[in-house]
């Protein structure tokens, strides 16, 4: 083997450490939002919903189409701040609805028939991967292989300066909005009546049914919540990577989001946030250290394998069923 295929560029990492950190946190927030969808479904059904990455990418398409039809394009829009905020909120809502509808349809069409006939786990996984594949190539047939034209939402403005590195408004908005959404989800699961139902089903589906919890309704709600969060993640993803919306764009991000969920502890809502942020950081540091953006994915997978080997329950443990505030 050539000995030059891997090299560690430590000075570069030192130099770019803070910008890599802030960027990593931004990506991590997006991973976290998508990871929540994996974690919630896994908690309730013990199923890796491979097709969640397609739920996410359909949200991205919803966002891009909305913004394009509102007149956004590759150039910075010349609208007032209020108009931009209004348009972005509209795009957010459309993206969330598109994702939630996809997630719900998936549950009804693909997973429910399997549950009805008590199919083995393998059947669920194969269905999930088949559905993911079918949606991906359905999009491919309609939209082709090239990414959607880039949509610039606003010009990021520097907000403040940390250790000589500028933190811009885009990063702040994404991280804060994502954290607010995740905390809201966490509180919803912990405090609301539906949240109690979700936890009950995660803990013991049969007993939950006996206690009067409508299991099917809870499962549907879980898919919808996961879809809504993925749709929100889609808006931030389009904001961060304007030209990243293409048919297979969700797939790799989905695997990374799943890795984030496992890293934090799958089935654990707070773990998804923590895992997402950590994975965003690790991926970015790895990429700069190894000097090629392709390494981000390799680093993410290696982290996933290491976590599964050393601590399969993740950092915070798989505790959705047990958590009680």
């Amino acid at each position, binding site marked *: 083997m050539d000995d030059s295929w891997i090299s560690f560029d430590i000075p570069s990492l030192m130099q770019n450490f803070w910008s890599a950190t802030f960027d990593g946190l931004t990506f991590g927030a997006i991973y976290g939002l998508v990871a929540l969808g994996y974690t919630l479904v896994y908690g309730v059904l013990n199923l*890796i919903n491979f097709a969640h990455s397609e739920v996410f990418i359909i949200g991205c398409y919803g966002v891009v189409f909305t913004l394009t039809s509102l007149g956004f394009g590759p150039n910075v829009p010349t609208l007032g701040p209020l108009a931009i905020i209004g348009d972005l909120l509209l795009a957010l809502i459309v993206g969330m609805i598109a994702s939630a509808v996809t997630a719900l349809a998936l549950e009804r069409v693909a997973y429910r028939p399997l549950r009805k006939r008590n199919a083995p786990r393998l059947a669920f996984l194969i269905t999930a991967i088949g559905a993911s594949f079918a949606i991906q190539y359905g999009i491919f047939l309609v939209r082709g292989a090239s990414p959607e034209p880039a949509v610039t939402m606003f010009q990021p403005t520097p907000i403040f300066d940390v250790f000589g590195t500028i933190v811009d408004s885009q990063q702040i908005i994404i991280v804060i909005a994502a954290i607010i959404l995740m905390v809201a989800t966490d509180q919803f699961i912990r405090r609301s009546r539906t949240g109690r139902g979700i936890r009950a089903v995660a803990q013991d589906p049969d007993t939950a049914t006996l206690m009067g919890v409508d299991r099917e309704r809870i499962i549907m709600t879980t898919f919808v919540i996961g879809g809504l969060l993925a749709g929100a993640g889609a808006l931030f993803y389009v904001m961060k990577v304007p030209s990243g919306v293409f048919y297979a764009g969700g797939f790799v991000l989905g695997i990374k989001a799943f890795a984030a969920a496992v890293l934090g502890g799958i089935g654990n809502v707070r773990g998804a946030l923590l895992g997402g942020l950590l994975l965003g950081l690790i991926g970015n540091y790895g990429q700069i250290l190894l000097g090629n953006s392709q390494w981000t994915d390799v680093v993410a*997978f290696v982290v996933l394998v290491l976590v*599964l080997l050393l601590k399969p329950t993740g950092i915070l443990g798989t505790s959705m069923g047990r958590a009680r505030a």
Partner: protein
Amino acid sequence: MSTTDGPTLIPDAKAEQDAITRESNRTTRGGFFAPLADRWNRLSRPQQWAFLLVVVVIAYALPVLNPPLITSEPGNDWPITCLQMAIFALVAVGLNVVVGYAGLLDLGYVAFFAVGSYTAAMFTSPDSPYLHIPYLWTLPVAMAVAMFFGVLLGVPTLRLRGDYLAIVTLGFGEIVRILATIIPAMKGQVGFQNVGHPPGTAADGHPIFSNSNGTPWYWLTITVLIVILLLAGNLERSRVGRAWVAIREDEDAAEIMGVPTFKYKVWAFAIGAGIGGLSGALSAGATGFINNQKFDVQTSILFLAAVVLGGSGNKVGAILGGAVVAYLPLRFTAIADYKYLIFGVVLVVLMIFRAKGLLPARQRLLAYGKVAYARVAARSRAGSPTAATKTEGTAK
């Protein structure tokens, strides 16, 4: 005592057979091929061998016959279509060991195919600066290297729950593809030209195994396929195969009954990987060129679709599934663009309506159990056990 039609058919055996037929009809729920499978099971061993011989001869003659309607021409060269079908069938047989026998969902199987391809290319292509060996030697070497990678990936991950395995293998498939791009020695998209081929020169001075003529490659591939089938069939019937079925059906129960589940899972993984590597080496030789473009997740999923479509756990089904998955897009070029969509939908629909695939796996252990059950049932129906033994005595 009633008269019998043949030397093997005793009255008890007839009742037995009926009971078995009823049982199998109930379990397969009227599958398309259930009557066929029953008829097959009723044939005696020599009859089965004779029938298989005919099938094998037809299989070898396939590229030369070029049957109308079935042929993929003019869209695609027919012998090369046959070769693709054979390679897909071989891959499906390998993946069937992992998914079908042991019940381990491997979504990165193309990685082993890639390892095999690159092994063959790097040992034979003039583009590679390393040691060169004759092409045929790369087949066992590719198998060994792929098995090594299988163990390397299997040992850390097979201790995990099954669904984690799915995502880790998916990641592994991506890593291999990305590494083929990043590592300079793998030559990324430039790839390796002129991968080696088996020796031999035709009368006109050209090598027999050329990249434009699929027929010799096809014959080589199905010969390998038949050898692998015999080996896999023996494994399936051995202690190892029984352990795999036990693991697939209920891993905890298998562990409690003393099956070293981890060991056998690693075995399944390694053997599956080896067959994947072998098919990769064959494919690289036949195409004559490899680069990093072919080894993507999509291909892994096509492989999986082949196994599931044919009937997970049934090696004949795997061959059928592999051949169908390779054949349809080449025969009906109009659907070639839609193939991933179609096979994705096929996976979902199959899982809902026919999880066992076209040819359901025969549960050998249960089948033996059914034979015993039917025998006991037939005896008690015939009256006293002595009457039954007397019957057998007269039939002899």
